[in-house]
């Protein structure tokens, strides 16, 4: 294992997957009791992706979940009550009842951006997070998810293209659950592996079994490390299957029964449980104890949510604008003197590497070519001091050295 996990961490992964699933089971009951105001989207069978990816992040890192990434929110530090109250539109919810589902976050402490329903839009937003983190010297990684369906949006392309051209520390996880609502992935996209999309941006496209939580963690950790080292964004395709309809109202009759059967046997929690039992990290007793502990916690959290009030109607009028209710202060982790007072040091000119000729610039690995250009204009891993060239890990080509600074 490239990134060894301690016994505690391995059990931790199991705990979060169980928490994720048992939480959603409780929410299905609440939905049937009409206690959930809007829709309910299931991540059944996809828990290993949310958990394994988010587990590879550090506290300082940022994420933006999609609708099926409740598990990632739990790993990042949100409590089950946040999920319950959000779905039940309560005044105690993180959004006070103004938005539902996983549409909430915390900029200050947990570093979670609140998603919107329009798919793909988080990709440029998290690119901006990654760019700002680099500018401020925070050495953070930004992560977000997209489905196979959302990978067809224009925002996906614009965001990934900007992230790659800026070498922003962004990890994009394509959660390929094979269904965009009722349409199978094969009818939406002309490629077998969505990771192939990465080629268009000159970034690595990794494929991982989305039902193997350890594999997901290992792959993501690789991507995160690469980002942290300033080597630019990574796309991970996690292959899995959506085990419920698009939302609770959808019985998903369009999914062929044998396909469902096939994936049922590959349930990520069952698979991981067997592994842990075989390795002696889990047994029937410790499993039952963990389940009882989770059940008790969830009961308390759910009761809190059920006993919470709905928001007062007049709240509808509040908060369209920030009238000084938020103090906005960037957290500088590099000396401000790097940029203040501004030092006139840049010559406004492009030096074009290779003049666009055929040759080196068309080499197989565009990232290497980019690095080889020794491009003073190009975004670097670490915030460079004004006027200094960022260090490139690759050896500059002769032409690049001559040009001094080039632009792809």
């Amino acid at each position, binding site marked *: 294992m490239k990134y060894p996990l301690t016994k505690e961490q391995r059990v931790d992964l199991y705990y979060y997957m169980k928490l994720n699933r048992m939480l959603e089971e409780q929410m299905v009951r609440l939905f049937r009791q009409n206690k959930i105001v809007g829709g309910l989207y299931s991540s059944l069978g996809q828990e290993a992706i949310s958990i394994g990816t988010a587990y590879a992040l550090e506290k300082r890192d940022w994420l933006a979940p999609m609708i099926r990434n409740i598990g990632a929110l739990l790993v990042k530090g949100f409590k089950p009550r946040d999920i319950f109250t959000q779905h039940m539109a309560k005044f105690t919810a993180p*959004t006070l009842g103004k938005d539902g589902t996983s549409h909430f976050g915390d900029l200050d402490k947990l570093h979670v951006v609140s998603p919107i329903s329009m798919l793909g839009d988080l990709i440029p937003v998290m690119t901006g*997070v990654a760019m700002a983190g680099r*500018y401020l010297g925070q050495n953070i990684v930004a992560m977000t998810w997209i489905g196979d369906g959302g990978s067809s949006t224009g925002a996906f392309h*614009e*965001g990934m293209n900007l992230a790659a051209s800026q070498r922003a520390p962004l990890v994009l996880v394509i959660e390929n659950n094979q269904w965009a609502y009722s349409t199978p992935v094969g009818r939406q996209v002309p490629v077998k592996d969505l990771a192939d999309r990465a080629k268009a941006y000159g970034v690595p496209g990794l494929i991982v079994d989305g039902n193997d939580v350890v594999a997901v963690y290992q792959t993501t950790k690789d991507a995160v490390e690469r980002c942290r080292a300033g080597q630019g964004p990574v796309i991970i395709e996690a292959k899995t299957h959506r085990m419920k309809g698009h939302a609770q109202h959808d019985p998903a009759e369009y999914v062929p029964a044998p396909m469902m059967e096939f994936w049922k046997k590959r349930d990520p929690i069952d698979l991981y449980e067997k592994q842990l039992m075989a390795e002696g990290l889990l047994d029937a007793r410790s499993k039952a104890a963990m389940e009882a502990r989770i059940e008790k916690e969830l009961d308390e959290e759910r009761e809190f949510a059920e006993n919470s009030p709905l928001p007062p109607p007049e709240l509808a009028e509040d908060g369209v*604008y920030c009238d000084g209710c*938020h103090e906005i202060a960037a957290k500088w982790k590099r000396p401000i003197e790097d*940029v203040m007072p501004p030092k006139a040091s840049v010559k406004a000119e492009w030096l074009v590497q290779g003049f666009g000729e055929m040759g080196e610039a068309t080499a197989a690995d565009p990232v290497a070519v980019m690095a080889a250009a020794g491009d003073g204009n190009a975004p670097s891993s670490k915030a460079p001091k004004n006027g200094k060239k960022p260090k490139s890990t690759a050896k500059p080509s002769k032409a690049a050295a001559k040009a001094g600074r080039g632009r792809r």
Partner: protein
Amino acid sequence: MAQVTFLEAVRAGLMEEMQRDPNVVMLGEDIGVYGGAFKVTAGMLEKFGWERVIDTPISETAIVGAAVGMSYLGLRPVAEMQFIDFIACCFNQLTNFVAKSHYRCGMPVPMVLRGPSGGGVHGGPFHSQNPEMYFVHTPGLKVVYPATPYDAKGLIKSAIRDNNPVLFFEHKFLYRRIKEEIPDDDYTVPLGQAIVKREGKDLTIVTYAAMMHTSLEAAAELAKEGIDVEVIDLRTLLPLDRETIVQSVKKTNKLLVVHEDTKTGGIAGEIAAIVCEEAFEELDGPILRVTSLDTPVPYSPPLEERFLPNVQKIAHAARELARY
């Protein structure tokens, strides 16, 4: 005090904010090495470097999206649309992500999106538009549209310092055509306040941007005929300064709204409704509108001339109204 053009005033405001606050960064297409299609950002890259003046791909959605992400970490990004017409390409980011962020989850977005707007320069259907009303209809955004160099500098500085997303429209017809003495020092003009540009007693013209100058010209002509016109420059469209409008109507009892935006759904209709709600008894005549035609902006000079309001059209409507 220095004589500056409208464009130089915007640049001065941007430059000063970049200088005083390291959290201000700029991004957009061709804003760095080239200095922007209209050269508004000329000299910025040289002064502030690659990290703070970012040339982006042709990706309006990514430009706005990245600005949102930056603002979430406490930066105050100023994004440029090369022409404001391209704001349609990032409509979703603006109306769904940016505008709703503070309301629905308490995440302020202190960003500015600025760009050249408006017609009269034969730019054709895609380089001449006034798309402000799409956004005035979007709670959570602020929309600013100055008419003078003084206001342009003072308002861009206020926009950057505001904790909310501000769309800043720069009428390109004004960029190099008007000059004004403005202070060299650090002054701001508050968002959300209209200004009475010409006092009068017979009727009120409410207007903004390039049409403010056209309206003043019309007012000078009407003065020769004995019609004393008050001209109000809105400066900010959202939030709208209702009070200044209503106060003026209470004085003159007649209202003409002039804008370069097309008629249906333009702000004139909204202003008429506000005056009917708040000062109906004060009105001595109908509320009239002089606006562009309800068509796309045509390219050929005689067509665009027909499309746009002008001094004659405004004076004609004012004379009609003065008769009541």
